[in-house]
Every structure is written in C-alpha cells, then in structure tokens.
C-alpha cells in the first residue's frame, strides 16, 4: 500500500555506496551532514539523507550536529516483518516504516495499528499464535504487560546499549522515544513561577483553583497516576485526586484537546504529555502556551514509546535489526523533529527549546511497573474521577 514508488530505488543504491564509502570512518564522524545544509554526500541528487528524516517548521531550526549509530552502519533490512503499531503516533511511525521500505527494496513491513493497550491485550490473547514479530508501542506499561505475559524475547545487548538503562529495564523491550509529563500553561494567565515545583502542591495553589484541565480516561494520565501511587502511596494519591476534583478541575477526552483548551484560555493550565503543546504551537505560532515541568515526582514522569520482539517470531534476526534501526541517528532525528518526542540516544537533542532529557528530573521508578494500572483505576473509580 505504501511502497509504491520505484524512484526511491535509486536512494537505496546510494545508501549502499554511501555505506561503503563510510566504512573507513567510524560512527559519529561526518557520515551524513548533521546541519541544515540538507545535501547528501556522494552523488547528490535522489538520495535519502538525514534531512529526509528531519521534520520542518518553526520548531525545527538550527539543529546542532548529531552523533550516534547511523543507518549506513547497520546491516540491510531484508524480509517481511509484521509490526503491531500501538498508539496515536501510528501515522507518523508508519511514515518512518515506509521510508525504511523505500531504502530497502527487499524489506516489506506489514504494520497493524490499534490502541496501545488494545494491541497488547491482543498479543496476550493471541498467545503463541501471535502473527506479530515486533510490538512497537507508545507506552511502557503496554510493553511491560506484554513482557510480563512472557510474550517478549530478550534483546541482544548491542541493540539496547546506546539507550540509558532506565529506558530498557529488563531488555525485553527498549525505549525508542520519550514522552515527558508536563504542565502546559497559558502565558496570558500564568507565569512559570505560578506553577509549583511538585505536583502534590497543585490542588492547594490559589492560582490554579478552577483553572486546571485533565484527561482521566487517557492512558498517559493513568500512567501518571500509577506513578504517583507508586511514589506517594495509595492514600496520598486518593487525597490528591479528591482535592483536584474539589478544586474544580475540567475533564477533557484527551491531552491534545487539553493542551488546545489551555492555548484557548478555556483553562489556565493542564496535565498533558509535552509534545501536545509543541504540536499546538507548531500550528499556531502565536499561541500563548508554554510548558512547565515538576521535579522528581510523578508529574515529571518520562514514559517511553518502545519496541519489543515478540516471542515465537520466526524473524528474530530481522526483528532485532529493525529495532536497531529505530535507534539510529536518522530515526531518532525523525522522532525528535516530527513527533516532538524526546530522543533516546544522547547524541540527538530534543527540539522546541525543551530542556534536554538530563535536565529533566524524572522520578526513579521502574517504568515497567506502570503496567499495573488496575489498582489505579480502582482508586480513580472510588474517588469518582473515572
């Protein structure tokens, strides 16, 4: 359906010669141009370069030079792979998949899209008969659920080594892009100093009374409450949810709409993953919208999109090589500049004036425990949030 263009075959050929030319130079040197010049090395026209992976727009300007493993350093992808693709970024991830198919004419990928948890549930129900080779999902909890059901194989250490340890806790999956919890706020209504440094203080902050929005049915929000439960305990979390309700929080169906409502001034601030605000700002450059981050608590959780190789696949080698490709400079630049996510490898910085991932102060919890949402839902139901 997507691999329709034969004109891209030339690009594949270039990459092969490019790889050969580069074989002397080690990864990280000037293999592909990292600046904004955009031109490819070698023969020039009709090539896939870093800029093909890079997005455009006001948020993507003046990118520093990048380092890390490049596509040219990896073996070719070849064969057919079924990838279960979970979550809202599906469409954008699909685009990366089709770029891979264009690069490698012998590589066919069959993406199957659905909600993250729904696909995780599907894989678990399918059991050993699952047609999936790779599960690529936008939430560590879903990956954790699949891993706990013994449906994920352990990845080789060379696949995961470039990613910080907390984003591959058991090596049954590895983070491919980060999604930070954040507080989008309306700059006409509030200033950064109005946003408390700890999320537990929100219900008692006068400036936020009746002015906050959240999306409790949204998976990322539930992961956030799960983290709070793990860090602060059940009763403090219950108390926090109740106080937020008492303070007149407004409910939205998802966090994009929450962020939009902040930009509209319908509410002054909200709870949302960081990239929604960037997406709003990318579309409406004059939107009075900025991001605040809390520190060291559930409000600063960094969840990840990640990939797992499914138990029982007959494409183990191809699947692992595919996951390696997701961690190349090119793919990471794609995630950073097109989905506004946090890159997972240190050599690629985030966009949009975001603090770098090591400037954030996420809580130290095992992301995999985020799959234990059941007690969270119980709590949210008890309080009347769900």
């Amino acid at each position: 359906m997507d691999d329709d263009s034969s004109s891209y075959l030339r690009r594949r050929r270039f990459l092969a010669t490019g790889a050969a030319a580069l074989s002397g130079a080690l990864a990280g040197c000037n293999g592909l141009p990292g600046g904004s010049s955009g031109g490819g090395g070698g023969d020039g026209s009709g090539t896939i370069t870093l800029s093909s992976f890079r997005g455009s727009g006001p948020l993507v300007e003046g990118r520093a030079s990048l380092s890390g493993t490049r596509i040219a350093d990896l073996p070719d992808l070849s064969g057919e792979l079924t990838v279960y693709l979970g979550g809202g970024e599906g469409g954008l991830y699909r685009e990366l998949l089709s770029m891979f198919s264009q690069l490698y004419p012998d590589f066919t990928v069959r993406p199957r899209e659905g909600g993250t948890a729904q696909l995780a549930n599907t894989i678990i129900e399918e059991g050993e008969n699952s047609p999936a080779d790779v599960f690529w999902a936008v939430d560590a909890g879903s990956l954790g659920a699949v891993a706990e059901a013994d449906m994920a194989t352990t990845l080789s250490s060379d696949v995961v080594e470039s990613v910080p340890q907390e984003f591959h806790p058991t090596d049954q999956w590895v983070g491919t892009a980060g999604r930070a919890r954040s507080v989008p706020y309306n700059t006409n209504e509030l200033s950064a100093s109005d946003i408390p440094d700890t999320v537990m203080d929100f219900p008692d902050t006068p400036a936020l009374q009746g002015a906050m929005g959240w999306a409790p049915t949204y998976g990322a929000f539930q992961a956030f409450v799960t983290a709070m439960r793990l860090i602060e305990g059940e009763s403090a979390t219950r108390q926090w949810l109740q106080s937020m309700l008492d303070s007149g929080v407004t409910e939205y169906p998802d966090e994009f709409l929450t962020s939009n409502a902040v930009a509209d001034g319908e509410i002054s601030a909200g709870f949302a993953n960081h990239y929604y605000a960037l997406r709003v700002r990318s579309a409406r450059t004059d939107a009075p919208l900025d991001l605040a981050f809390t520190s060291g608590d559930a409000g600063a959780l960094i969840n990840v999109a990640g990939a797992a190789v499914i138990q029982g696949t007959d494409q183990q080698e191809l699947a692992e090589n595919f996951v390696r490709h997701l961690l190349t400079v090119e793919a990471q630049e794609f995630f950073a500049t097109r989905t506004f996510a946090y890159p997972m490898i240190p050599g690629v910085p985030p966009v949009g004036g975001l603090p770098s991932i090591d400037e954030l102060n996420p809580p130290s919890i095992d992301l995999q425990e985020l799959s234990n949402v059941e007690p969270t839902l119980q709590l949210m139901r008890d309080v009347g949030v769900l």
Partner: protein
Amino acid sequence: MSREGSDIVAAVDGLRERIGWPGRYESHPLVTAAAILVAVTVISPLLWLGLRAAAVGPSEALSILTAPSTVQVFTNSLALVASVTALSVALGVPLAVLTVLTDLPFRRFWTVVLALPLVVPSYLGAFAFVSAFGPHGTLAELLSPLGVTIPTIYGFQGATLVLALFVYPYVFLTTRASLLSFDSKQLEAAQTLNHDFRSAFRRIVLPQIAPGVTAGALLVAFYALSDFGTPAIMHFDTFTRVIYVQYNNFGRGTASLLSIQLLAVTALVLFLESRFGSGTGSGYGGGVTKTDSTVTSLGWAKAPALLFCTAVVALTLVVPVAIFGMWLLRSGPGYAGGGFAFEWSFAINSVYVAAIAAAATGLAALPIAYVSARSNSPLARLLDRSTYVGYAVPGIVLGLALVFLGANYLPWLYQTLPLLVFAYVVRFLPQAVGATHSSVLQVDSELLGAARTLGETPQGAFRRVTLPLIAPGLVAGAALVFLTTMKELPATLILHPTGFTTLVTYIWRVQEAGYYGRAALPALVLVAVSALSMILLLRQEGDNA
C-alpha cells in the same frame, strides 16, 4: 357497541388475520434447525466472557459489581437508554407519520433526508456537536460577542441529544415500514365514519404500527447501551466507557464482569419488552401488500410540520457536514504526515467488506426470521431475541473474544475477512432479522398451499413464491446492515486483516493522533457512500409502495 365501533374492531381483526398473526403455520424442521444453528453460532463467542469473568475471584467480583461507581455507571446507562429511546420515538414516529400519511410537501425528499442521519456515525456526530456547540465551539464564538452563552453540551443532556439525533432513524424506518404495510382503507373508513384524524390514528393506526415502533425502539435502546464513542465524547460515564477504559488497561477480568452485567441488562430489557410489549416484532421491510396510501391533509399544520423536519435535518445533517467541511478547509496542525495520507482504496475496502457482511447477515437472518414469523412458540421467540445479545455487546468485547477464539482455535481464519465478517453478523443480525421478519409475515401461506397443490415441491414453492415476496425485506435488512457495517469501529479495529484499512479505521487513526482535520474527508466520503445506499434502500421501499 355502536355499529361503527364494531366495524372498526372487525376491520382490525381482519387485518391482524391478514398479516399472519402467529400460530397458524409452523416452519419446516430443517429451517428451525438452521435457525437454532445460527443463534448458537452467534452467541458462542460470548462464552469467552464467562471464561474471563470466572478468572476474577468471587469476593472481588462482588466488590466490583457493588462498588458505588459501578452502581452509578449502571444507573447512568439505564437513564441514557431510557432517554435516548424516548426521544427517538418522539422524533421518529411523528416524522414517519408525516412522510407516509400526510400531504407534506416534497415527501420523497424528506423521507430520504430524514433517514440519512443513520449514515453519520454517532461518534462523528458527537465530535461535530462538540465543535459546534461546545465551549469555544463555532456557535459559542459567534454568539459570545452578543453576550449570549449557551448551556453546556456535555453530560447527560448532550449525550441523549446527540445519540437520539443520529439513531432515531431506526424508529423512523421501522415505523414507516409498518405504516406502509398498513391498509389505509381502514383509516379512510374510520374517517368517513366521523372519526377525526387524531382519534382514528389512536384507535386504528397506533395498534397496527406498535410492533414496528417497538422494533425500532429496541434497536435504538441497544445501540445506546453498546455505543462507546458518544458517551465518551460527551463526558458521560456509561457501561461501555468504563468497559473500554478497563480493556485499555489490562483489566480484562473486570471488563468481562461489567460486560456480563451489561448483558443482564440486555436480557432484562428484552424480557420486559416481551412481557409488556406488543409480542410480535416487526422491522424495516418492504410494504409488499400495500394499497394506495390515503393522504391526510395537514391544513394549517403544514408550516409547523415543515419547520420540524427542517430543524431535524439542520441538526443531523447540516451541522456535521458543515463542521467536517470546515475541518477540511481549515489548515490542520502543522506536520508533514505522509503516513496519514488518505487513499481511495480505504473507501473501496469499506464498501467491499460492508457488502459481504450485508449478504452474509441477510442469509443468516433468513431462517431465524422465518421461524419467528411463523410461530409464536417460546423457542421461536427465544431465537429471535437471542440475536440481540451480540448487538448489545460492545464491539471491543466481541473483538477480543474473537481474537482469543480465532488465534487459538481457528488460526487459519484469524485476521482474515471471513472472521471480520462473522463479527459483523454477530453485531448486526437483529437488524436483518427484523426487516426480513416483517416481510415473511406478509407471505400468505395459502398462496404457498396453492403452489404445492399445483405440483410445486417445497423448494420450488419457496423459490417461486416465498423468495420473491420476502426479497424486499431481505434487501432492506441487508442494506441496513451495510450502512451500520460501514461505520462500525471497535470490532473492525481489532479484527481487520493486517494492511486492510477502511474509512473508519483511518478516521480512528488520525483522530487518535489528534489530527481532526484529516478525519474530515473520509468522514464526508463515508457519509456520501452510505447516503447512496440509503437512497437505494428507500427506492426499494418506494417500488413496493
């Protein structure tokens, strides 16, 4: 009793006799066996629910089912079902009467456009309503300079309004079908006997169309019970919303328990309907034996009637199409998303799978409709009612049940079109049964007897007499299944063959990612394609009229 009164009663009895009041002609045992087979097959996936629910311990199960929030959700769901059904009847019946029995100008046009809201998926309708009437919606922005604030669209009222506006056509269509098959000479007679229209309507028409209204109301009630999108978008907690949240968070046990509770509600509604309802179902079907309709003059009521129709059409068609159109023209959020590119093949896939589902469901409905129309025995009623079970189950529950059964026991069927089509049959069978049922009722068994006397085999008599007579009902039922399949989302998302994108899975994908603008074109295509089939459906009705 006055002479006029007894005349009317006799006429009514004659009519009841003529439409084949049950009990006279039982079905062939083979047909009954086929009906039982279909019923058991469509209920079988739900056994999985029991398996899942059994994995939850009894004490935990009890605490989940009696938790205050569960009770709240239970009450919310029942309230929503009751209000949506009541509002749908309040809209559907008068509109059906206007378009069948009165001299409303442009009746043909109104019939088509008043049936059309059925082709707008209610979740898209809800999105459109939130965009138009929500806080900071188009209308709010227009009115705020004038100092006018509009009441909130969210919550119970909003969910009721949106659901009723997009599902009342079930009542409209089934009521029309009953009115069309109603012998208007009765009404004529009553009116010549000095009954005014209202009293004649109450005494003659209403008892005759009650089964049709009930059939439509049942479809509406179970739609409201199983729809996820609208309550979620309108911020109103119902069973489906909670079940959906559970399924999305690995609470499969809890979700199954809640689904079983939902099924218990379904059973209760069906039981109540069979106790207090009219006893015999009717559905949307061709008015095969209809004579020329007698048109009642609206007189001074013509203008209010036109206004009423216009208001309904404005809310159900103009608002969504205008909002989708606005999304289409307005530039979406900035991104270069080749991965989201719309392809016409999505529309072709939708039509293809919906057509297969329509044919398969029509075939599966035939034996059940036949048995239930020919007999009023407990078995026949049980068979008829059992088809509603799959209709009331949320699509996500049915989808995962079929994943479990498919991947583990039928791997050659898993993620293939046949399994997806099977899911549609389970979901939409009662629509086809209802429509076929009403045309089976109209087959005069004496005609069959005559065919047999003239030397036809039972098969020959079926082919040459029964089939042509029930074809309109079959086609109407299949068309209704086609429409609802086109817009079905959750089961499609879970069971589609890999790489098989339909209009709604594409709409879901872009909507999930927050790119509403990208949903506009496929939404308009969905509405347009469905509208074409709706026109065919009504033309079918017209040809029989």
